[in-house]
């Protein structure tokens, strides 16, 4: 019993990180219909930026977090401007391949900037872990889960309640009509990129204290996030969030109860099952619904 609760705690923690990655991917997909295979690299950038800003430069934590987020957003902006927009007229598969190229480029740049050695980052706060029913709950887990819920809530608020957010949805739903209503859809695409890669960086900031960070950590995290988004139904915000948590919990239970070698396999087995049984995702409405 105690073991299972422990697995649940760690599962929800990693799940929350997958959720943040998935939310970023899914949001970009809904507003630009593009799957960004470089998304995981922005997670790496976020984590490595924490290594530099917080550990090496010893900036205060809030400043380091803000700087890491800003770096993720800025790289996203540059990525959209110089890699995606220049090839805008091309068909989607070309754009997807550009993102694959960008992923290799970012990983290489990361290796040059931070070297090949893994780094560790301390927890955000030095509180003792809390015991619940004999299982230890790390304060970092609470930070992560609260942060993830806050982030998804924030994006939800942005898309549903603000003019810019609604305009972004409008662009995603019907770009031509959005244009004819005077909404500059190119600017919306840039914004979607910045928010999405910012989410990636935030996931990296969260994950840095609970794992070793290195230049090549992004690939597998990006793929896990993609699985989570597919499980939830690509394009749905809360679906992606739930998909992330579900994936984290199943992974943790599978690794703990069956075999730790299964940990990474579970995500992909789940992805194959979902694609086979419910290609629209678990939480997708009958008609493909966005957001």
């Amino acid at each position, binding site marked *: 019993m105690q073991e299972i609760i422990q697995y649940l705690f760690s599962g929800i923690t990693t799940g929350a990180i997958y959720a943040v990655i998935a939310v970023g991917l899914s949001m970009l997909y809904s507003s630009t219909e593009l799957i960004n295979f470089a998304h995981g690299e922005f997670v790496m950038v976020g984590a490595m930026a924490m290594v530099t800003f917080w550990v090496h430069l010893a900036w205060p934590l809030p400043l380091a977090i803000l700087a890491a987020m800003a770096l993720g957003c800025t790289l996203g902006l540059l990525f959209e401007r110089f890699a995606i927009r220049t090839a805008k007229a091309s068909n989607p598969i070309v754009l997807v391949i550009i993102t694959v190229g960008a992923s290799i480029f970012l990983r290489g740049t990361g290796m040059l900037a931070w070297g090949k050695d893994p780094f560790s980052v301390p927890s955000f706060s030095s509180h003792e872990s809390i015991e619940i029913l004999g299982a230890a709950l790390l304060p970092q887990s609470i930070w992560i889960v609260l942060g993830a819920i806050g982030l998804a809530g924030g994006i939800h608020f942005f898309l549903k309640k603000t003019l810019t957010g*609604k305009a972004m949805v409008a662009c995603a739903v*019907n770009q031509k009509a*959005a244009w*004819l209503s*005077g909404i500059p859809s190119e600017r919306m695409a840039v914004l979607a990129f910045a928010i999405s890669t910012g989410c990636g960086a935030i996931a990296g900031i969260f994950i840095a204290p609970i794992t070793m960070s290195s230049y090549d950590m992004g690939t597998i995290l990006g793929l896990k996030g993609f699985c989570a988004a597919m499980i939830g139904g690509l394009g749905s915000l809360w679906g992606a969030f739930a998909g992330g948590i579900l994936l984290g919990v199943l992974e943790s239970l599978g690794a703990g109860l069956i075999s730790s070698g299964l940990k990474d396999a579970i995500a992909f087995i789940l992805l194959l099952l979902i694609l086979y049984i419910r290609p629209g995702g678990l939480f997708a409405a009958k008609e493909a619904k*966005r957001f």
Partner: protein
Amino acid sequence: MLRIKNLKCSYGSITAVHGVSLSVKKGELISIIGANGAGKSSLLLAVCGLMKTWSGEISFEDNSLRGMSPPSIVRAGISMVPEGRQIFSPLSVMDNLKMGAYTMYRKRMKAEVEKDFKMVLSMFPILRERADQLAGTLSGGEQQMLAIARALMARPRLLVLDEPSMGLAPKIVDMIFETIETLRNQGVTILLVEQNARAALKIADRGYVLETGKMVLQGSADELLVDDDVKRAYLGQDYGDFYDGRGN
């Protein structure tokens, strides 16, 4: 107000519009009629910036529209009600209207937007009832009203309508045309493109007839309504009626 000179549009090697010229003066309601594929929609796409490559000259209030993006054309004062309504179905009716007012909000004219909400909601009371409903759940006629209301929210000086009667029940079509007439009487300049030639010419000041990308006829709407060629080709009288009618 709007002046088009020798406009040519082509898709690859296929030319859709061969040198069309027309003008719309302030306060006028102009109808462009023509059959399917006559180049009406291409002409409108060029006016609202959705078609990138055209030659000739399009100017609005003496400024050329060449190279302008659709949003900047909206800011310049031309709003279009696109063919097939193109509302944002997962957004509420109110949010659709807000999207129409996007350029107004960006110009920080919030008070004017509130006034416009009242204006369009009193013009289309059904939209007030449905304000919080998702736009995709509206009937075709209601969606058309929403599309017109959305375009009006940008306070256009020229309103362009592409086939507003398409796919609607005759009763609704009458209502839509009445609305368009009311708008004209309120001083909005309107460019209307329609296949429903009779209804479009009845409310128009002047009309143009497009045929396979060329302007074949133009004149006052009253003249066109009684023109024999127009009658035969667009007003739904078949050759039998037409010749019999002439015999009398």
